[in-house]
């Protein structure tokens, strides 16, 4: 059996799902737009962070294609910079959550018995917690009290803090998925053979079992990106995530409620970007699941 055959089969099955292919195209366009943000900014001759109180809440025009926000900043360019933040946080936090979840799920599924029971009770406990209030408590911690000054104030620290916070509570779904997938694997002949040949538990888990879990893990990452983007956006909306002047789709909506009477456009657009991105990742994840799962259809 060659490694290429199942992959080619999965690709063919994926290609037949029009919705998932559409989602992939939407995401590709979004990534291109996010990458092009500085170019668009230069081409339009606007500045994403420059406040201009004389140009507050302007309607769309030749200079500002989507108008300006409550501080006179260009909405289109801020949306594109927001895309960078959301995609960066989404991808990194989903990968971080997946790493934690994979280690927990794999250990649980491979060791079984009491270790499995303890780990899964722990996972269930974390899963049952009210995530958002806890994230709010975590996000409200004053970094000056934890980190040395130059680190505490930097933009990158702000980004990574959100990534870490979200990943800390977001790994549970992955852990359950990986556990149930690995349960089926550990009784298979090649795993028993490796154990019989004297391979250690860690070696078997990571060299023999893990590579066979790649497809559920890819699905888990894709599906958790959407969840992570939602969490980041709500924290930023509440003023506890990405801090202005850095644009994020969530913090662009923070003031939207007060100005929804005058400029409804400002309340609609950033949310639309969040929604389209999240649904695209969810549809893509669902499509991948069907493509990888031979029982599908």
């Amino acid at each position, binding site marked *: 059996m060659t490694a290429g055959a199942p992959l080619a089969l999965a690709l063919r099955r994926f290609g037949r799902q029009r919705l998932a292919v559409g989602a992939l195209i939407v995401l590709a366009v979004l990534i291109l737009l996010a990458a092009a943000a500085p170019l668009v900014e230069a081409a339009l001759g606007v500045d994403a962070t420059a406040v201009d109180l004389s140009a507050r809440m302007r309607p769309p025009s030749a200079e500002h294609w989507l108008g300006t926000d409550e501080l006179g900043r260009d909405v289109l360019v801020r949306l594109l910079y927001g895309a960078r933040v959301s995609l960066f946080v989404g991808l990194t936090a989903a990968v971080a959550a997946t790493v934690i979840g994979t280690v927990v799920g794999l250990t649980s599924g491979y060791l079984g018995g009491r270790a499995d029971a303890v780990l899964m009770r722990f996972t269930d406990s974390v899963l*049952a917690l009210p995530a958002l*209030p806890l994230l709010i408590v975590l996000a*409200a911690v*004053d970094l000056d009290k934890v980190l040395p000054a130059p680190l505490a104030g930097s933009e990158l620290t702000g980004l990574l803090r959100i990534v870490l916070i979200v990943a800390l509570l977001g790994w549970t779904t992955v852990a359950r998925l990986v556990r149930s997938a690995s349960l089926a694997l550990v009784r298979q002949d090649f795993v028993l053979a490796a154990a019989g040949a004297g391979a250690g538990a860690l070696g078997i888990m990571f060299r023999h079992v893990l590579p066979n879990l790649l497809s559920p893990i890819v699905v888990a990452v894709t599906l958790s990106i959407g969840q992570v983007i939602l969490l980041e956006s709500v924290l930023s909306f509440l003023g506890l995530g990405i801090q202005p002047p850095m644009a994020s789709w969530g913090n662009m909506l923070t003031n939207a*409620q007060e100005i929804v009477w005058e400029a409804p456009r400002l*309340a609609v657009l950033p949310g639309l970007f969040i*929604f389209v991105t999240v649904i695209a990742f969810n549809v893509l994840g669902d499509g991948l699941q069907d493509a990888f799962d031979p029982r599908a259809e």
Partner: protein
Amino acid sequence: MTRFLLARLAQSVVVLLVISYLSYVLMGLMPGDPIDLLVGADPAVSAADVERLRALQGLDRPIHERYWSWLTAALGGELGHSRLYSTPVLDAVGAALANTALLLLPALAVSVAIALPLGVLAAYRAGTAVDRLVNVLAFVGISLPQFWLGLLLILVFAVVLGWLPAGGIAREGAPAAEHVRYLVLPAATLMLGTVGGYVRYVRAAMIEALRQDYIRSARARGARPARVIWVHALRNALTPFVTILGLDLGLLFSGALVTETVFAWPGMGRLIFEAVIGNDYNLALVALLIATGLILLGNLLADLCHGWLDPRIRAGAAP
């Protein structure tokens, strides 16, 4: 069953203790402890005064000692005062709990009432256009940011149409219809934010149930199709669904926090958020723990329902 119940209770207590310790430590790391606030309010306070005040308040003691004295006081019923509300902490929490229940229960009831038939329909017609349509709608539901959904509903029903209030809560003693008018938009937001996930759970559980042998034998015995679906299969699909509902309570409460904040609904979620933002740590800690405790309790109740719905689960058996 008793042993199982006791083990689960013990586990919930451990989780609560861990959360209380972590939150206590984290809240000590937030900006503006009581001394900071005092210094900010009065520039004449010197560094020596600050040291003296910290010692007086016990803030110079190691964190675990402070946590221990907080915990023993809290277990003795000394929960302290709220800085924001200037009332004993429990008074503020009590009112907020009632408001959250008022928002959450109708939202949850409607959400389940919509999810059950839709999920069953999609499962029964799995693979057809109906199934695909339900699936797409469910995806829309789980992908909508709830705070934005709330903003959109405000935009349409309060700003453009002017039918419903944009937020807040009816005055005490107002007629019931007035209370309902304030409830509609936040409850709809919360409902729409949860129903998509529930539909997917019901569908998955129903597909699993319809695959079982007893369904085939029920059909073979000539049971009417409607009876097979709504009695035989649904009863067995309900078991995993109730468990997931229990596990999802935390998610539901997170949704309530967002909804309450957007609609200025004075419930538990908004209380916790405002307390954290407003440096009201006494209140934040107690409210967070009470919310978490209730969620864990709901979880436990869901597990009990599980045992009641599925007679195969008996004394001592882990779910």
